[in-house]
């Protein structure tokens, strides 16, 4: 899916007088099937940018085009529908539903789609199997390790075959082997379905796999080029 940001800014208002500028004048174009790594020091605005891309929050300024549509002008309903059908999001903090078993967590994005229960369940289990957690399907998040939770979150993000996958430190809690597996899955998905992938990372190996590395600093893009 094609993504086009121009002049995006985001300012958090903490109070009447205190404002935190998190993003400043971001221009970014991502082609269909492209794999982009966002790098930069902690607090430079990667998560904020991904949230805007994922329609989880609105930018304070600028325009955001998804394919040919202006996403900044979406209604709340359109945003929700778009999140459900075309976007997959992997959070830095996993954000799994604590009281639900893994398979239900993975199935959750599908509950808002018109498919039979059996199909939904089937797809959820397949996605879990793809991240190697079929045997943990009935475990709740608290009963799993951080890495396992991360993989459940990955499975959840992939379960509806998104056109745009946004990942915030997807390998941050994984050992190098599983990290590579997860990364392989993401790359594979991007290749097969034309999914555009944008991932924030501190991990040089992820950056190395990405076709393109965008470096941020202090809320702005400082360099944008092919990965090393």
């Amino acid at each position, binding site marked *: 899916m094609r993504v086009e940001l121009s002049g995006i800014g985001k300012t958090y208002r903490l109070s009447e007088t205190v404002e935190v500028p998190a993003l400043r004048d971001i221009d970014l174009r991502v082609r269909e099937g492209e794999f982009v790594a966002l790098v930069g020091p902690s607090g430079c605005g990667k998560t904020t940018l991904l*949230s805007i891309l*994922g329609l*989880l*929050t609105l930018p304070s300024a600028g325009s955001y085009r998804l394919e040919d549509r202006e996403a900044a002008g979406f209604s*709340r*309903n359109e945003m*929700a*529908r778009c*999140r*459900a*059908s075309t976007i997959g*999001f992997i*959070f830095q*903090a996993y*954000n*799994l*539903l*604590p*009281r639900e078993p893994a398979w239900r967590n993975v199935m*959750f*994005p599908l*509950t*808002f789609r018109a498919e039979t*229960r059996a199909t*939904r369940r089937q797809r959820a289990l397949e996605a879990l199997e793809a991240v190697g957690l079929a045997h943990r399907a009935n475990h709740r998040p608290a009963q799993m390790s951080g890495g396992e939770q991360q993989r459940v979150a990955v499975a*959840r993000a992939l379960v*509806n075959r998104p056109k745009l996958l946004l990942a915030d430190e997807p390998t941050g809690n994984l050992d190098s082997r599983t990290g590579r597996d997860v990364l392989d899955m993401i790359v594979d998905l991007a290749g097969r379905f034309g999914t555009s992938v944008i991932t924030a990372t501190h991990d040089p190996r992820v950056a190395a796999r990405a076709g393109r590395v965008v470096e941020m600093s202090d809320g702005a893009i400082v360099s944008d080029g092919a990965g090393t």
Partner: protein
Amino acid sequence: MDWLYMGGTLLRELRTNRVRRILSILGVVIGTAAVISSLAVVEGGREQLRLHLEKMGINMVLLEDRYRPEPVRLFQDVYETEQRQAAAIEDAQPDEIEKKIILKSRASPGAAAGQDPSGDGIPMPEVLRMRDVEALRARLPEAALIEPVAMDYAEVGLTGTRPRVALVEGGTALGAVIRNLAVREGRYLIPSDTERSEQVCVLGSRIAEEIFKGAPAVGRRLSMLGSQWRVVGVLQPKGTMMRFDYDRLIQVPITSMHERRGIEMVSALLVQARDNDGALALRDRLHHEVMARLRDRDPEEIRVFCQQELIEQHATMLRTFRILTISVAAFSLLVSGVGIMNIMLVAVRERTREIGIWKAVGATDADVMAHFLSESVLTCAIGGTLGILLGVLLASEAAGFVASTVAETSGWSPVFLPVFFGLSLGTSVAVGLVSGLFPALVAARLEPTEALRHE
């Protein structure tokens, strides 16, 4: 939206904040119980009125002389106490009744000595006599029928058994026509009974049962008012009309009663208007005519009622009851609505992060809203269901309470129409919707990133 799945999670949520949830449900329970019992009691009251009208017609006027000669007053007391002991009448201890009579007799020696009816030496006031009835018939052409009645309370029994106190009514053959009375066995009073002052009587169905214990009554003899009376008929069950229980009434020719008592007094007139619209006018004319004949009497002692008034009185009573229950319902529903809103706000706060996750993976505002609304509606519907059960259990009590405090009837059974269950459950659902609306809106309007950041 997967409703089955959402339903499952809903049931789980209901188990959170359980104590507070139960407390806030209490108001819904009480409120719904008030709603359904009010509906059922009012409907029962209407039904009772309908039956009543079927029995007597709307065109009846009753004139009652409140003056009671001393012996009548004495027994009336006992009789009314006994009546108040309601259904347990069969178990009423004859001994106790006797004791009361003795006590009362001591208190008023005049009565015990069986002196002149005016008892304490005060001369008897002017009362209606049979010739007045004739005169009234001539002067009131708008009255289709005028039936003179003499009321008395007497000890009644078979010779050799303990007597009981019963209400004895002296009347004429017209009495059956005007009140639609039908006999089950034997016959009713006939004109020759009154003409010749025959010592015959017609029994109400229950009193016949009580005295004769199921054995045929017609042809047997009863002792009352100091002599023997032949039973000529037993009425079909009729129930209460104009505050008289016809099933426990003994009817005799009015002339015979006057003879036995030694007082010619017509204590009531049953009058049938020629048409329904004339009843109210007839009531006033009747009172006027009677007062013209009893010049030294206090007009307050000569009471007239008509069915029309009774209906209005009944309607007022039901309205009062409805206002009362509506206030109870409104108050408890309001209080519990606030409680439920509070619980739902707590739930939204506790689950803010989860709401953020739902939204991040695609739940719309409407999905979130529906979830929280269903939760508050379900909470209230549980309370509503309990309230309906409670209301059904309490409705007869409520009917009895209304009857005894506001009306002078013995109460009635509540009537539950199917729509009442829908209405009262609907009320509780409405409380759920209203009190859940604000918290659900709060949840729905959360921004995903803000919600996810919530600890």
